[in-house]
């Protein structure tokens, strides 16, 4: 639960029945059923990506390459051409597709286990090559699909099924801040880390996705957006506490903001210091 408490009371029936206020269904998101948990942040992140693709007028030239994770089960709802890749291998598959179809808008979707554990070298090489693709990381700090196990981005102290006493950096090692690895590489033009734990960050993240895809459309090089997503199931917290947990546990490690935009390049430490200064100011 966030510090401000839930927006709607969840411990009793609503005082008035739900009303449909408008149609909020993005064109590229079909109404198909999926298997993701209540409170999961991944559908929200994918929705933003599909909205931006449509708003940029790229619905009929987009090709997505999908990794293996919970989000894979969401892909039947995505009405864009897709290639399902293996765990960890989406960036090289996207590379081959982009080289043969330079006019297509190529994006990848991977989780933290997929990109930062299994396929770490793939995304680094793709960025260094300056490949004109946009890699999107959905980072929730756990292997959600297996039931909440430690990944390479799990925060220090974070409790997972195989770090029951919390991630002890002396024993389990330190998390990798993947956006920090990618941002300074020669081929990287845009790298940012957003979050979908509250409305303000949803808006900021959508703007990041737009800048990343525009970078690709302009043919400038590699673009990357990491999106922190809620996983209450894998974090073993009540559904409504997902956003607050993300803000409290993941964000202090994986700071949100733009790490690379053209020539400007900063680290997560800089973003954290800026956030502290804003809070104090």
């Amino acid at each position: 639960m966030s510090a401000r408490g839930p927006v709607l009371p969840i411990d009793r029936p609503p005082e008035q029945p739900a009303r449909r206020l408008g149609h909020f269904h993005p064109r590229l998101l079909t109404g198909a059923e999926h298997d993701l948990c209540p409170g999961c942040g991944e559908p929200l992140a994918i929705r933003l990506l599909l909205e931006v693709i449509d708003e940029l007028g790229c619905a009929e030239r987009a090709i997505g390459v999908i990794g293996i994770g919970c989000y894979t089960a969401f892909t039947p709802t995505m009405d864009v051409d897709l290639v399902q890749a293996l765990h960890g291998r989406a960036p090289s598959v996207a590379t081959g597709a982009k080289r043969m179809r330079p006019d297509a808008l190529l994006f990848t979707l991977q989780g933290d286990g997929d990109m930062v554990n299994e396929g770490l070298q793939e995304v680094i090489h793709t960025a260094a090559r300056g490949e004109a693709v946009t890699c999107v990381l959905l980072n929730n700090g756990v292997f959600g699909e297996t039931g909440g196990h430690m990944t390479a981005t799990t925060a220090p102290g974070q409790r997972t099924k195989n770090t029951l006493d919390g991630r002890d950096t002396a024993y389990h090692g330190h998390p990798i801040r993947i956006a920090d690895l990618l941002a300074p590489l020669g081929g990287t033009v845009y790298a940012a880390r957003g979050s979908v734990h509250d409305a303000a960050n949803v808006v900021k993240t959508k703007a990041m996705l737009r800048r990343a895809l525009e970078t690709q459309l302009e043919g400038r090089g590699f673009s990357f957006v990491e999106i922190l997503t809620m996983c209450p199931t894998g974090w073993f917290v009540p559904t409504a506490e997902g956003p607050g947990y993300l803000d409290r546990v993941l964000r202090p490690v994986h700071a949100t903001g733009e790490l690379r935009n053209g020539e400007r390049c900063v680290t997560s430490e800089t973003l954290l210091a800026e956030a502290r200064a804003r809070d104090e100011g």
Partner: protein
Amino acid sequence: MTRALLEGSEAIARAALAAGCRFFAGYPMTPFTELLEHLAALLPEHGGVCINAESELEAIGMAWGAAATGARAATGSTGQGLALMQESLSEITRAELPLVVFHMARGQYDYHQATRGGGHGDYRHVVLAPIDVGEAVALTQLAFHTADRWRHPVHLYGDFLLAHTWESVEVAPLDLGALPAKDWAVDGSLGGSGRSRNLNPIGMRKGVKGIDPESFWKRLQAKHDAIAAAEPRFEAEGCADADLVVVAFGSLARFARGAVRELRAAGARVGLFRPVTLWPFPSQALAAAAAGARRVAVLEQNAGQMIDDVRLAVLGAVPVVPIGGISSDEAGFGLGDLYAPDEVRGRVESALEKSALEETP
């Protein structure tokens, strides 16, 4: 196009171009390296792309992505590099993507790897094994055609000798017949139409929650059965009245063929059976070729791999004996004392003498 004296690697590279290959990715490793060098030079000149992949894992991934767009794509390596690629090779099969894999092996030790694969699940790849550079030029083009026909990976099994032998060959495009349109390939054009594509190796479909592995795998297996029925290729000579049928493939079959022809000319009742496809193995043709023989001798440069398929083909009707074995140069590149006409002839003669002692089947 006129004949030219070309090294095997360059001839294969030019045959790939003649077949319309537009994408290649690879990681250097002898004897695959030379093919990568030639394609790195040739493909950009012909409107294609060759990427020096950072590892075999990336090479196979890039080829996967290129194939998904409908482009004729290829990759390859030698056995060690191909071992790294197996997970993707298996998955690409289930995504039903056409892909050509140049399996430039260090000798014949990777027969099982090529014909069984090291990846997960039920799958086989078509494996073509040319006997010389001239046949490699034709089979390279057939590989791209067969891959497109079945939407299935096809390997060309070569070796150090094939890669480095210079032969006079003509590399001209072959007309292998019409193929179905690649309406399955992703180009992004169907986004928002409700009919967008999903090239999916786990059987997921747009608009449908979950997967149905059993029906998906059974459909793929039916395709394997159709390939196994349609694609076996072989060469047989002198088998009709042979007491001894020698079975050999690839470069070593060239030595076996020489020995068999010499012994035939001297009056010996010996024949040669050469699988051109290692999968599907030409089992029925071999069973027929060996039906009248006293003995089948398998000449392969390994501890005994193809002999499994030979025994399955003849099903105990004829004794099957190995006359090859482990043989290597000092670098382990796949040459050895076995690759010598006198050595091979001696082994065939010895098998002939022993076959004379067998009872007539």
